[in-house]
């Protein structure tokens, strides 16, 4: 576990020294969500109805945007080779990297999204639902995106390819995340949605670290 903690701390420290990387992702999220009312029109009812989908899609794109570099720097400077040789499981290293990514993107996005929801005229419950579903759902996005990032290491057209691989796999998370806010809008509880999102995140947690580790091994070969 010390390796896990050390890797996590290292990744967080790297981000801490260059906060610009995170800020760009959050700025992208804000700008992308703001563009939708400009494109669709300022009608309040319509915006409140589609707010959940917009916030979730924008969060998904923002998370993917930041994933391209998740393993790339380690791959280029040789740190990945050291992780492959390390005496502790590569699966844990993959998990640490994804956790670090979630802390610096998923978590801020979950905090920021309710604020953006205010611009769309979401109700109090709706804002809560946006924040909570993103909090529970984004770990799955970090893991799925982590797999796509590991698979596309050193590939041609890496960034676009990463999105093509990750987006279909993110569909269940998106459906239940945005769906939760929709059922709040018609006055129902969203606990079921939250529970299913949690289940999706746990399923990703139980399977994807192995897939990511396998992808990293074949990248290092």
């Amino acid at each position: 576990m010390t390796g896990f903690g050390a890797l996590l701390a290292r990744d967080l420290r790297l981000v801490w020294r260059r906060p610009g990387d995170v800020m760009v992702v959050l700025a992208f999220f804000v700008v992308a969500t703001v563009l939708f009312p400009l494109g669709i029109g300022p009608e309040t009812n319509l915006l409140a109805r589609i707010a959940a989908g917009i916030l979730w899609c924008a969060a998904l794109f923002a998370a993917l945007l930041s994933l391209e570099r998740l393993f790339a720097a380690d791959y280029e400077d040789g740190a990945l080779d050291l992780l492959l040789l390390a005496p502790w499981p590569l699966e844990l290293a993959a998990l640490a990297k994804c956790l670090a990514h979630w802390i610096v993107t998923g978590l801020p996005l979950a905090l920021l999204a309710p604020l953006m929801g205010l611009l769309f005229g979401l109700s109090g419950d709706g804002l809560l639902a946006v924040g909570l579903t993103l909090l529970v759902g984004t770990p799955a996005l970090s893991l799925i995106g982590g797999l796509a990032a590991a698979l596309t290491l050193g590939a041609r057209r890496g960034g676009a390819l990463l999105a093509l691989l990750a987006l279909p796999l993110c569909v269940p998370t998106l459906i239940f995340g945005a769906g939760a806010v929709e059922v709040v809008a018609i006055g129902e509880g969203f606990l079921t949605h939250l529970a299913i999102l949690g289940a999706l995140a746990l399923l990703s947690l139980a399977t994807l670290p192995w897939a990511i580790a396998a992808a990293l091994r074949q990248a290092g070969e």
Partner: protein
Amino acid sequence: MASLHVLANPARFRRFSQRVLPALSVATALALAVGLWLALVESPPDYQQGETVRIMFLHVPSAWLSMMGYALLAALGASLLVWRHPLAALMARAAAPVGAVFAAVCLLTGALWGRPMWGTYWVWDARLTSMLLLFFLYLGHIALSRAYDDSERGDRAAAILALVGVINLPVIKFSVDWWNTLHQPASVMKLGGPSIDPSILTPLLVMALALLLLFVVLVLLRTETEIDRRRLEAAEMAL
């Protein structure tokens, strides 16, 4: 030398496939001829769908075969990752575009069926959406396996993707079903209602057999080409 060892097994496969391909091609042509005759001439119009039921004879087998194709990709991926079977990589590379074309034909014929029956080319029906996502999974597999200069890396990456994808397919199906009931309840017509009349079932099954044979022929043909291509690459590396 590693490359010679890799080719040992595919070479045997290649001889086998060259022996069976002519016979299989003839069988495919015959089955297609019989199937098309049954589907377009012999079968009566459906009492509910009218003449448009003839689209189903293409649409439904394409759907079956595109799902079977993804299962095949996952099985090939597993045999590449677990047993390092060299042929599996080549066959997966050959099969992915075939499966994608079957998925595309399924989607397009579905749209052409939906226009007269539902009044629209596309509805966000759960089954349609799942098929569209399956098509995207195919595209991802094809793009990933061809994204590397070192084709063996692409093979292994695509194999991992196929395995993750096949685990995810039921989850995607489940969530899309759930999502669809939220957005637009019912109004989905099931093929032929609760039971399918033999006059419809026979052409459907013959067409399914014909398209299955076509799938197999195309995969064998393309696998042969992939084996030759790998030999060519190995020869160019040696220069």
